[in-house]
């Protein structure tokens, strides 16, 4: 069965600092990979996705993620965090052929200090 592990439940960074959120997955083949963000009072929003090709994926709001097959990882990064990035971030995998059926990690809550 597929699974997603986000090792960090809660991360605090200062505004302007760099950010890396970790995601590891377990899956029989290379799945489709996603990062979603959930801000207070808003629905989950897709930040970026990886299907194939270039393993460094650019997303919205200045985020990027790198797929590393050898490590089964898909870590999310941002060079300089803004206070508005405070939210909960979810990594997800979806099987090829039915990538609506996402398996989400438990999420990482990001706090941004001024």
């Amino acid at each position, binding site marked *: 069965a597929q699974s*997603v592990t986000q090792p960090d439940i809660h991360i605090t960074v200062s505004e302007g600092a760099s950010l890396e959120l970790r995601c590891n997955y377990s899956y029989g083949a290379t799945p*489709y990979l*996603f990062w*979603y963000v959930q801000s207070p*009072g*808003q*629905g*989950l*929003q*897709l930040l970026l*996705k990886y*299907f194939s090709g270039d393993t460094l994926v650019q997303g919205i709001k200045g985020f990027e993620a790198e797929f590393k097959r050898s490590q089964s990882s898909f870590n999310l990064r941002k060079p300089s965090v803004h206070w508005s990035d405070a939210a909960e971030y*979810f990594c*997800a995998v*979806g099987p090829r052929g*039915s*990538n*609506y*059926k*996402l*398996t*989400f*990690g*438990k*999420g990482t809550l990001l706090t941004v200090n001024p």
Partner: protein
Amino acid sequence: GAGVSQTPSNKVTEKGKYVELRCDPISGHTALYWYRQSLGQGPEFLIYFQGTGAADDSGLPNDRFFAVRPEGSVSTLKIQRTERGDSAVYLCASSLTSDTGELFFGEGSRLTVL
């Protein structure tokens, strides 16, 4: 509407009661999904509709859960004989097609079963 709309935003009910949760997807989106997010967990897939039909209901936990989408737009998730373990946020999402991996989520309906 501009986004996915879910009603009610909050529902408190007693164990054993029947509950309906409504989802109004983004106009023109033929694919609709229900997910459930328990406290401290990521969302879990319940069911996927393509048009009026349930194309994949493999995530429904048991036969107390049922969902319909009679006209291919609004969907209703129905829970019979509610149990305390059904308490969660029920998320609805929609997309233009089922193969993009980009799901547009509503804010959810928080169900509390006393």
